[in-house]
């Protein structure tokens, strides 16, 4: 469903499924990704990594490596220490090593880097570096890490006596305890959301190119936030002479991001340091094992939740306690004031009278992180908790889970709705989305089928998730990263012939900004989207912005595009009035032109006006037709949806087969329906992945399992069902064109729908909860225990 477009298909404004402007180059193999960049004299870097999860470094012997033909240098922590570059800040104002000088803190940590004339020589050199280690006690369990007497991991921090990173809490603890004590029924559950990895098909990489003559550093890098990276480089390396106006960060085509390309990884910093010292371009592209084993992970939340209700199902209170395993450094990419991200969206789509949530961040001997996996800062964790608990409550009360949701939804007439944990939900119509999903899937018939199958001993389940997202960070009074407010920007130039160039502070990684941003400008000005050139990702040309993650591009930069276009239109009106010799008040705007009220034949198109702006503008007015907007959103946006999953379970193998999955999303007004559906398909697949397949685990010595695609199971076309999508449209009341953002809703909403479906299939056997990923092994063990295995 989509509202009727206001513009013609030729103009291609909002609501048109305009074919993507970025596709012609990708289809011909002419994309330009970081590893495609080859500069004259470019050197290659490879990294030596630790086999131990926790060990003292006794000695690094580079002599054999330096004898390898083509190897030019071996860089260690001692090398970087001379320049005070061996440590760096994380985006959460914690610190992490670039290269160690004393000890390693996780398996696969960077220990040294080899610079050589080609990538094979660099790899040979890395294999020839000899490192002596003295293993130290390893802490992998975050609960044990908090016990008294646990080895203190961050001995680099003066006065640190434990492994706690932060304690964060929100809500009213006493009132929540009281409400739960007074409830007719309380369900309690431990829920673990395991450590997973975004695994974008392109790994991370950089080409750092320092020009000694001009003193200018150009960095081509897989980053979702090029402007922020430029500032971080200036702050971290200012003391060695890198000054922000002499740093250019280019984010070329990016092969998927999903949050994994927000942080600054040590490899980037080492490559930059090497280029500055050697004066030649240096390329580093990690391989897949490095990517999975050392880059920032997501999730790793150990949740204990309690949800109370009256006998009739009315929810009475929610309490959530969480231990967050951050690895050896808090390298999440949350807004500064939110160490647990936006986890306080955990009251979900329901009218919750009272709630309390707390999160303790913990250090362990694992890679640093806590980033999102296609989600807006810990929202997936929150949604999984509330949607699983809601199903548990339904099971306890013997109520239908759809009916229980309908009973507790925030009513449509209560928006904007202030949640008990402090958010103002902008708009919503939750019953409409759930009703639509139930109609499409044929809910009542499925329940009948399930009852019949149960009689025959067949296992079939139906799972619902009615999620509320919170995206578009964010309003500057609350949201910043390292102090930089989370606005975003657009600079729009309309050229004399009526064509336009629009530059943005964000950076597409597949979302299709070159198309959708052009459609926003087309909608506002009537200039065909085909004639709006969108540029992003080059800090020398694009206006400053905080980048693309957390579904923030449309809510922030997209809004800036619309406002910049409206500023252009305001000026265009003055020029039109001058050219038509009427007062501005006598003009009316229709798509693409101003005409005189009552005399529609007297009009000037935006193209006429653009030409006049450079050839015949009023005296006293500046020439040209351009505008800049830095958009500071007044609130976040709250996309939502209802998903229904139907699963069949093989009693012989424990395998879960997703038979159908219906996703009804509401992301407000839609720019490009084709692209929105594509975003939802992808998001659903990245919801399926952790629900059934993906997990990174560690043994007691801190050895990683799941560190290659042999063991880390990214779903293929065989496991992925044919997603069924539909929409409801509830515009955001505060966004300039009523949009909300959509890139991550499905990743957030899908996992509990799948988990709820599996538990539903097994509920009659007394199963109440299964942690994701729900592998055949886990299910088979349950079936065996319950005597239901075939």
């Amino acid at each position, binding site marked *: 469903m989509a509202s009727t477009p206001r513009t013609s298909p030729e103009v291609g404004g909002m609501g048109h499924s305009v074919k993507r402007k970025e596709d*012609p180059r990708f289809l*011909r193999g002419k994309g330009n990704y970081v590893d495609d960049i080859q500069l004259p004299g470019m050197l290659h870097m490879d990294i030596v990594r630790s086999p131990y999860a926790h060990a003292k470094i006794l000695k690094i012997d580079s002599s054999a490596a330096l004898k390898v033909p083509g190897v030019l240098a071996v860089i260690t922590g001692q090398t970087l220490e001379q320049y005070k570059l061996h440590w760096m800040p994380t985006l959460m104002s914690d610190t992490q090593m670039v290269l160690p000088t004393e000890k390693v803190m996780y398996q696969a940590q960077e220990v040294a880097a080899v610079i050589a004339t080609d990538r094979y020589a660099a790899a040979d050199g890395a294999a020839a570096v000899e490192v002596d280690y003295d293993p130290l006690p390893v802490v992998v369990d975050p609960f044990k890490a908090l016990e008294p007497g646990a080895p203190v991991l961050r001995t680099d921090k003066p006065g640190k006596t434990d492994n706690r990173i932060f304690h964060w809490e929100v809500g009213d603890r006493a009132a929540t305890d009281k409400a739960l004590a007074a409830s007719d029924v309380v369900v309690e559950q431990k829920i673990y959301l395991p450590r997973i990895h975004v695994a*974008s*098909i*392109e790994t991370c990489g950089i080409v750092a190119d320092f020009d000694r003559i001009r003193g200018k550093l150009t960095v081509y890098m897989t980053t979702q936030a090029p402007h922020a990276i430029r500032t971080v480089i200036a702050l971290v390396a200012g003391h060695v002479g890198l000054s922000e106006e002499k740093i250019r960060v280019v984010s070329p085509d990016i092969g998927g991001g999903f949050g994994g390309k927000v942080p600054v990884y040590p490899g980037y910093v080492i490559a930059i340091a090497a280029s500055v010292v050697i004066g030649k371009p240096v390329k580093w592209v990690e391989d897949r094992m490095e990517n999975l084993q050392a880059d920032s992970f997501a999730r790793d939340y150990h949740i204990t939740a309690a949800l109370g209700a009256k006998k009739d199902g009315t929810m009475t209170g929610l309490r959530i306690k969480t231990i967050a395993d951050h690895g050896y450094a808090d390298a999440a990419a949350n807004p500064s004031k939110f160490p647990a991200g936006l986890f306080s969206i955990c009251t979900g789509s329901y009218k919750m009278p009272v709630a309390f949530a707390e999160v303790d961040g913990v250090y362990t001997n694992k890679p640093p992180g806590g980033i999102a996996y296609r989600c807006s800062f810990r929202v997936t964790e929150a949604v999984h908790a509330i949607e699983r608990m809601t199903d548990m409550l339904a099971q306890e009360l013997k109520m239908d889970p759809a009916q229980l949701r309908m009973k507790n939804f925030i009513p449509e007439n209560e928006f904007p709705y202030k949640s008990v944990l402090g958010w103002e939900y902008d708009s919503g119509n939750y019953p409409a989305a759930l009703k639509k999903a139930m109609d499409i899937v044929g809910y009542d018939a499925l329940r009948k089928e399930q009852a019949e199958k149960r009689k025959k001993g067949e296992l079939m389940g139906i799972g619902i998730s009615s999620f509320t997202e919170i995206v578009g960070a964010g309003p500057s009074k609350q949201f910043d990263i390292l102090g930089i407010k989370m606005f975003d920007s657009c600079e729009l130039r309309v050229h004399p012939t009526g064509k336009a160039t629009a530059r943005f502070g964000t950076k597409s990684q597949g979302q299709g900004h070159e198309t959708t941003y052009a459609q926003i400008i087309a909608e506002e000005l009537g200039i065909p989207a085909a004639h709006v050139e969108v540029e992003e990702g080059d800090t020398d040309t694009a206006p400053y912005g905080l980048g693309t993650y957390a579904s923030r591009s449309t809510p922030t930069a997209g809004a800036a595009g619309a406002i910049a276009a409206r500023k252009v239109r305001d000026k265009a009106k003055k020029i039109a009035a001058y050219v038509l010799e009427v007062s501005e008040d006598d003009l009316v705007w229709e798509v693409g032109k101003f005409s005189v009220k009552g005399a529609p034949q007297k009009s000037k198109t935006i193209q006429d006006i653009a030409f006049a702006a450079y050839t015949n503008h009023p005296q006293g007015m500046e020439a040209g037709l351009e505008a800049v907007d830095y958009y500071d959103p007044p609130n976040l946006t709250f996309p939502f949806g209802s998903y229904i999953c139907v699963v069949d379970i093989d009693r012989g193998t424990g395998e879960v087969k997703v038979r159908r999955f219906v996703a009804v999303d509401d992301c407000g007004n839609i720019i490009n329906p084709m692209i929105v559906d594509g975003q939802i*398909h*992808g998001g659903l697949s990245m919801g399926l992945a952790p629900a059934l397949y993906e997990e990174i685990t560690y043994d007691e010595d801190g050895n990683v399992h799941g560190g290659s695609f042999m063991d880390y199971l990214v779903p293929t*076309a065989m496991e992925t069902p044919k997603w069924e999508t539909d929409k409801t449209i509830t515009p955001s009341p505060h966004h300039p064109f009523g949009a909300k953002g959509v890139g991550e809703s499905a990743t957030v909403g899908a996992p509990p729908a799948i988990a709820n479906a599996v538990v539903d299939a097994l509920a009659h056997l007394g199963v109440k909860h299964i942690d994701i990923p729900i592998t055949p092994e886990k299910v088979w063990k349950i079936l065996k225990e319950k005597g239901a295995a075939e």
Partner: protein
Amino acid sequence: MARHTIEINVNGAPSKGEVESRLLLVHFLRENLRLTGTHIGCDTTHCGACTVLLDGVPVKSCTVLAVQADGRAVDTVEGLEKDGKLHPVQEGFFQEHGLQCGYCTPGMMMTSCALLSTNGSPTEADVRRAISGNLCRCTGYVNIVKAVLHAAASAREQKAAKAS
């Protein structure tokens, strides 16, 4: 390390090279010939981003040595477009929004070409099975499947038009 003179027919034209025994085919294509449309996504033959056709058969070029392709024919994404006209598979991916970040796309398209060369009327299940060695993180495969079916239909139409 031993060096070898090899000659590979790449996209219909002979390409000579002096290569080390261990040079991977994907590096020969990307770095020696600067055909960077073939991408690298893993090191274990799982992701399929580096898929090319070797004598018409799809292979993961990250686990084929350049010397193994000596005297043989290799087709890459750069060879799909003919006379300024997109290949039906390219057109299918464009029309059906079968790509987002574009990174898996060349490998996905080469695998699809191989499928269509042996099965002109694949079912959805045939397509899913054929591309199961190519990972995509963006699209959820739904539109890729549509794209390949679109390509199959238009290839059949083109064939019928030629025959009549």
